């Protein structure tokens, strides 16, 4: 019975964590405004994740709490690694725009007025939360991860980003082939996400010590 409850909470957390990174994609696909999604979806999802963590603490499911909290912490730190590459790339002209700033103006619905301190804060918070959300997913799935798993995970996120409606709306085509010489954007995105993935797995290898991956947790509940 306990394993079923644990599994249910894990799947709920996986689903909730997957919502946030897709909101920007949905908005760039023209389905809904990011400002609307931020208020009506993002904030409720963050509250729900907190509630699920609270329930896990109450039920003394230490493993789920540990995996989720570690995922959030490692995800945020790994986003710093990603940001170092992305920001450097932006300043060197290998990125078409400052994505967290763009997210911020879209979240606060002030594109015509451009960014200000509040939109920058909102954009950066959303960007780092996305890093944390990807961290939760990876931590819950991989447990005590291996570095190659993180590298693969980061690569998949990067590829997913480069074929998403976001790059189309930026006017640079899939993989950024229509930007500059066609390779600068993809190179920066791949390196940045490799940095994210390797940092994430490196940290979770230590933080999640002794916790196997989800498959093994299902097979051997005790």
């Amino acid at each position, binding site marked *: 019975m306990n394993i079923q409850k644990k599994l249910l909470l894990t799947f709920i957390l996986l689903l909730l964590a997957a919502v946030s990174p897709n909101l920007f994609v949905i908005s760039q696909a023209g389905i809904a405004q990011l400002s609307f999604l931020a208020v009506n979806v993002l904030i409720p999802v963050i509250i729900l994740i907190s509630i699920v963590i609270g329930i896990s603490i109450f039920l003394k499911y230490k493993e789920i709490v540990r995996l989720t909290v570690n995922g959030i912490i490692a995800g945020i730190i790994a986003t710093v690694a990603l940001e170092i590459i992305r920001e450097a790339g932006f300043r060197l002209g290998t990125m*078409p*725009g*400052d994505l967290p*700033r763009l997210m911020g*103006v879209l979240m606060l619905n002030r594109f*015509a*007025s*451009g*960014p200000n301190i509040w939109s920058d804060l909102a954009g950066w918070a959303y960007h780092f939360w996305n890093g944390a959300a990807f961290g939760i997913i990876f931590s819950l799935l991989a447990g005590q991860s291996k570095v190659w798993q993180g590298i693969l995970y980061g690569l998949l996120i990067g590829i997913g980003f480069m074929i998403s409606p976001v790059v189309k709306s930026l006017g640079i085509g899939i993989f950024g082939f229509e930007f500059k010489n066609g390779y600068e954007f993809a190179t920066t995105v791949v390196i940045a996400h490799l940095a994210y993935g390797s940092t994430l797995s490196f940290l979770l290898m230590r933080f999640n010590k002794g916790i196997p991956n989800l498959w093994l947790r299902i097979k051997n509940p005790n």
Partner: protein
Amino acid sequence: MKNLKIQKMVLALMMVFMVTSVFGATKTRAQQTKLITVKSTKSFNATVEGIKKGVANAGMMVLAEIDQDKILSMTGLTINAKSLFIGNPTVGKTAFSDNPAVGLAIPIRINVYEKHGVTYINYFEPSSQLGFFKGEKVKMIGQKMDKKVAMLTGMFSK
């Protein structure tokens, strides 16, 4: 055989006529829109602020503002450029009642930008844009707006 040749020639002439007509029409239309550029004697910020005050004094209002410079700062470009959309709801009501298609030209867009340290104001002459739309009132509004915008921007060239 001879008939076929004549048919081909007629067809070719018709195609030439059609192509030149299309290009001719486009050219005529393009010539109707008049771009006016005014060199401002004031700084960029003073010009923008001055226009905002001038708009209010001319019985209009700034309906929307696009901070092109701030938007483009997200791409790493540093410039001074702002677009102001000016108008007045009463005039808008008259124009839209006469022809609801005028939304393409109303409100009037005024652009302020800086190039090599010099501030410029540019805009399409309202009557030349509103001239595309049918309606007597629309045409009259266009002519009135020409004078208002010319007076407004003229203040900055002195």
